[in-house]
């Protein structure tokens, strides 16, 4: 064939190996084994991938807020009285001790979330063994790390609320200055994300009462723990921004 199509066909065939059998690696599965029994390993991986992608968009939200923070901070504004350009950014007097206590609470909750994650991973791994009649693995310590995490998380959120009250007492309201607007906004958006994490952990706790397969609950706890770690790092970022870029 002297047509153009046949001449460009050749590299095309070499590029993806026309007729070659499918590679062993590359290409995913469809998430179940075809016998109706879900493959939890694959499902865990899928939900983790989903979480990483979701956190990318959360990151973008905070990247844009950070850039708005820095741009707005540097803006000169026209002052009607002096007829000149001035800086209107008032550094917020943050309640530092309180925020450090909050940070410690969140750091501890991140730690307990990790312990909860490892605990349920171990339980899920041993579940098939445990279900064999007559096999006993001894008593597994059932310390409620998940509940501790939720309590610490709620403690952090309450601490943030107290910090807001403290800011208001010091005269910094939402619309006082662009700086205080950003402080309220950043902490609020972070708090909303953390509330989402608390709700998912509560859901995992409720599911544990329903005698569903532990693997499903393990996936929920696993990704929420990772989400929780991310929220901790995000808080460090916000705190550093508010404190060092006053």
């Amino acid at each position, binding site marked *: *064939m002297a*047509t*153009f*199509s*046949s001449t*460009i*066909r*050749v590299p*095309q*065939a070499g*590029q*993806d190996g*026309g*007729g*070659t*059998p*499918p*590679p062993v690696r*590359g*290409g*995913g*599965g*469809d*998430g179940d084994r*075809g016998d*109706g029994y*879900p493959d939890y390993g*694959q*499902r865990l*991986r*899928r*939900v983790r*991938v*989903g979480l990483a*992608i*979701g956190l*990318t*968009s*959360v*990151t*973008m*939200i905070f*990247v*844009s*807020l950070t850039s*708005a923070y820095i*741009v*707005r901070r540097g*803006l000169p*504004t*026209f002052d*009607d009285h002096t007829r000149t350009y001035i800086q*209107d*950014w008032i550094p917020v007097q943050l309640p530092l001790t309180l925020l450090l206590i909050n940070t410690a609470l969140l750091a501890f909750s991140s730690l307990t979330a990790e312990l909860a994650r490892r605990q349920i991973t171990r339980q899920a791994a041993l579940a098939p063994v445990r279900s064999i009649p007559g096999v006993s693995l001894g008593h597994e310590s059932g310390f409620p790390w998940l509940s501790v995490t939720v309590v610490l998380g709620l403690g952090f959120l309450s601490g943030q609320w107290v910090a807001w009250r403290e800011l208001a007492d010091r005269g910094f309201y*939402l*619309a006082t200055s*662009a700086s205080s*607007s950003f402080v309220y*906004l950043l902490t609020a*958006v972070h708090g909303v994300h953390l509330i989402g994490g608390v709700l998912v952990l509560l859901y995992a706790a409720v599911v544990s009462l329903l005698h569903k397969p532990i693997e499903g609950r393990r996936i929920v706890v696993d990704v929420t723990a990772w989400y929780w770690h991310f929220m901790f790092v995000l808080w460090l970022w916000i705190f550093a921004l508010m404190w060092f870029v006053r």
Partner: protein
Amino acid sequence: MVAQDAHAHAGPQGFIRKYVFSLDHKVIGLQYYFLALVAVFVGMFLSLLMRIHMIWPTAMLPLVGEIKPETYLQLLTMHGTIMVFFVLTTAPQSGFGNYFLPIQIGAPDMAFPVLNMLSFWTTFVAFVVMLAAFFVTGGAPLHGWTGYAPLSALTNSGPGEQLGADLWITSIAIFCIASLMGALNFITTILDLRAKGMTMMRMPLTCWAWFITAILGLLAFGVLLSAGILLLLDRNLGTSFYVPLVVVNGQVMGHKGGSPLLWQHLFWFFGHPEVYIAILPGMGVASQLLSTFARKPIFGYKAMVYALMSIGVLGFVVWGHHMFMSGMSPYSAFAFSIMTMAIGVPSAIKTFNWLGTLYKAKIRFQTPMLYAIGFVSLFVSGGLSGPFLAQPVLDIPLHDTAFVVGHFHLIMGVAAIFGMFAGTYYWFPKMFGRMMNESLGRIHFVITLIGTYSIFMPMHYLGMAGQPRRYSQFTELAYLQHLMPLNRFITYAAIVTIAAQFIFVINLFWSMFKGPKASDNPWEATTLEWTTATPPPHDNFGGHTPVVYHGPYEYSVPGAAKDYVMQTDPAGVTAH
């Protein structure tokens, strides 16, 4: 998050679970498609009112009565917003992508079916909230689809800027959340659910386009969301992110120190990738169709993939070219200008490869192919005015004229719409099991192609002659009198083109019920959706998972029995 029954072989039977709150990606895809179809007619009707008002300014029009200047701006705002968000972002990506992405990569469904359902219904709520803006006191907002502050950030800056503007921003914020959920689902599906043998470089270019588009959406919509939150705070809680010390109607507002440019930066950081979110899926469809109907492999598959990637990357560093008018530093403007013109390189690669695919091919000129060629034509025509506008020295005189209106309608509006038409005519047999009427399709194509060129090409001349955009009336301006015949011509062309769209709608619904039955592979195409039944069963492949042996465009392979080799054909090519 992963529903058990989405993977079962028999789908749910109840009406609500099957058609309304369905977890099936195919039903959700159709829901998105029909949402966009309703939206496009709303948006088109608004544009018709604007065009009629331009040449008969005193005419009483249906539903709106006499058009005052502010009414015109409300129509303009809602036309742009509805078209960009609920048509160009919704149908090509969420509509066709939802339906065909899982099938084309050999998956039984999207990665997270419940999330998928949620993202559709969230989009639906956003659309209802957007339309509600028409019906509140003061009506729809008038700040344009770009929502520039301080006009958009003050509640007393004009009619429609009270509750209407709040609804507008709320709708956009809801839409952002829906799009983020959708993007998450698309990316996870492509990364984790490909069938055995479906490597990334064996994916059809449609999948690549949906993939890159999802990444753009993932990175861009979060920024718009936070920009929208700041705007809502400025409007309702007295903060000053965007509003400087400003006097409105003699009243000093409480804001001080904010910067309207901050909104522009945040908005266009989203807004420019949004342009590619609208057009990339169309590029994917065009590549798919050109190869299929030219019966040739796509010219330079890898180059096409890398071109898509580089368009995606460059799309994030050019937002400043929308702001040359804002008093930007010439150095920044220069950098943005260079980056913008750099996008011409991957765009030219794509165009060259499309033409290379067509070169010396035995082309089957069926309706889907006509639209794919039309897409390439519009992409070139609309794209060529891009390098003009990318240069600050040319953009400054042209920016606020009809030239820009012509430019972005050709490249982003009509080209993307042609991608949708191509996709509709191409995939209709798979979606509904019947063929669309070929004669009506051709008539629709000819009128639409000539019509859209007649509408938007002359706008370039109007712009160069100095006709400003966003003005509601030209009849009173002496220096524009000699342009009125051209304006009248555009309006007549718009009326004819809009009327011709009813041919499409009639064809669509008539063929759905009365069209001739379609075979499983009516176009003799190679990708996975054509290996399964028509319409596809609930789990897409009727209980088995496909295995992929070939790239997506194995047409006219020497030595093969037929002139196409299915991706799932294990024998395939005998001779290299």
